[in-house]
């Protein structure tokens, strides 16, 4: 249809539209909606391609209020044992006094928040630091696993195959961040997966989803427009224990030098 055709048809009054024309428009609408439907169908059925992603997380230390909702959400979402020793994520509180001494605590991983400090007298600065598996790009846990039960996925997440893990616990020793534990029910190593089952469906990890202050930012390093890309662009970021060359993919903004 060229422009002149459109022009000639445009002024036509609805009453003057013939049956033939109605049928034509109906079929056009049908075709368009069919195309739309088919298009949507194709998008939904397109297989997830891990090579197109590289997941990472940003943590803005200044935004964390230590409410512990992330810890609770993680335990609920991932069926992490309830005893206060097993954590895929936890929150630490740092209290630095005027003498430069630092006291750190994380009662039950901070799952129920933190008790008020006995006194704020002499306190120089305090802050909360959420911790989790750093999903290292150069993961020592993967290197040491004797059977390859723990591995790096193509989309940049370190996972454990619990059907394959022999429970030697070498990976737990090799992790510099204390991010791993032995699940007492399965006797296999376990850790944060970035909620892999959610992120491959374009959902956010549970801890990010529930964070009331937006202290945690999840995203894809391959997407230049993701919130994470913005986070890494607009803030000065740091990783934990960079001297170990593990290349962590949890990036901290406003991280204090006291944090290890």
């Amino acid at each position, binding site marked *: 249809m060229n422009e002149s055709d459109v022009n000639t048809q445009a002024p036509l009054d609805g009453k003057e539209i013939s049956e033939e024309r109605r049928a034509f428009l109906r079929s056009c609408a049908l075709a368009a909606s069919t195309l739309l439907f088919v298009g949507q169908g194709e998008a939904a059925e397109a297989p997830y391609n891990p090579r197109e992603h590289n997941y990472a997380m940003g943590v803005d230390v200044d935004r964390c209020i230590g409410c512990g909702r992330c810890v609770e959400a993680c335990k609920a979402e991932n069926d992490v044992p309830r*005893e*206060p020793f097993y954590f895929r994520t936890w929150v630490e509180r740092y209290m630095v006094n005027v003498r430069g001494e630092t006291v750190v605590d994380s009662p039950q*991983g901070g799952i129920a928040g933190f008790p008020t400090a006995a006194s704020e007298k002499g306190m120089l600065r305090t802050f909360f630091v959420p911790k989790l598996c750093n999903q290292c790009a150069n993961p020592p846990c993967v*290197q040491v696993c*004797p059977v390859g039960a723990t591995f790096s996925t193509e989309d940049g997440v370190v996972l454990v195959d619990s059907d394959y*893990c022999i*429970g030697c616990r070498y990976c737990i020793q090799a992790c510099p961040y*204390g991010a791993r534990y032995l699940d007492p029910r399965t006797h296999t190593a376990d850790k944060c997966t970035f909620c892999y089952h959610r992120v491959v469906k374009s959902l956010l990890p549970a801890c990010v989803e529930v964070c009331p202050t937006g202290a945690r930012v999840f995203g894809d390093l391959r997407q230049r427009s993701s919130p994470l890309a913005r986070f890494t662009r607009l803030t000065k970021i740091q990783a934990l224990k960079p001297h*170990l060359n593990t290349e962590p993919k949890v990036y901290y903004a406003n991280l204090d030098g006291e944090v290890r």
Partner: protein
Amino acid sequence: MGPLEEVLRQVVGFVYPNEVELHWGLLIVVYPYVTGLVAGAFILASLVRVFNVRELHPTYRLSLLTALAYLIVAPLPLLTHLGHPERSFEIFITPNLNSAMAMFGFVYAWYLMVVLLLEIWFDYRKDLVLWSQHERRLRRWLHRALTLGATDLSPRALHFDQSAGRFITIIGIPSAFLLHGYVGFIFGSVKANPWWSSVLMPIVFLFSAIVSGIALLLVLYLLGTLLRSKPVDMICMDKLAMFLFYALVLDFSLELLDFIHRLYEAEESIHILSELVSGRLFLSLVVLQALLGTLLPLLLLGLLSPALRSRGLVTLPDELRRLLYVGSAVLIQIGIFSTRWNVVIGGQLFSKSLRGLTVYKMQLLGPEGLFVASLLLLLPLLLLLVLIAVLPPWPEAEEHPAAA
């Protein structure tokens, strides 16, 4: 209150929540201790075979059998420790070649099959043939079966036994170094752990292995001789004590080097490690490992060393010397076991946040408890008794009057 809650109450400072529980317990202490004895016993045997230290000949076969008995037991503490021992075969089928631990199966199989069993077989073949000719029933059949049908006793065949045995021992020395050096590497290569991460670790493990192997053989040789009511070969004992002294000097120097190096570098971990050594490891490291397990035996063996004895400076009757040797050897065993403890348990008592210490609660029963560990330490000695019964390592067993 569960055991972990109890541990949580004893945590000092801050540890990451997942660090409250220790992951490698008593069984992983037993493992390097046992493999160390294997390597040490084998190195002692190679002193006779390759370096022709004739004075030690009475301990040669006993060393080989001891190495075998301990080697058979070596994987058991690991297997018992695994969360899924039934999956352990995966280490052989789909090993992760980047993992130091994945190499265990191969190093172990190589050492057992290629080195130890072959060497013992070549060394005993002639005697097996001769024994089976004069024995009856079960022993006859057993020894005949162990010859694997190779009953040729011609000079040429016997010469081949000799050269094959020597060749295997030569391969065996680096293999023994590999076996125990590798165990040291398992710990030394963990960069996350400042207590473990050290290039010296495999070497320190090796020399402590040699020390523990010689000390064990000294006790076993004396026990075996006294129980058979035979005269103790004091030349052999003196030589054993001398090698024990030299190995201990080397081992102590390396440990000291490691200690001074850490202290001098004083990296960020120095504060928590100092706290660890002066607190939770004081008994096992300062008292048991350093004072009782190293310095006291060094002093004793040094006083009894040939350098002083030959000048007539310290002359003691044989019985007393023997007693002091055995006393030193027992102290050394306690010291080496403490060394393993201090590495394995010590390395997990401090947090990787370098801000706090946790405690190790040893179980009494249970798969990783004291009972099982003691059993695993006793088992090689029982196995050794069986091996000695089947393959007598004593000089009189090599005499074959009828054949002569």
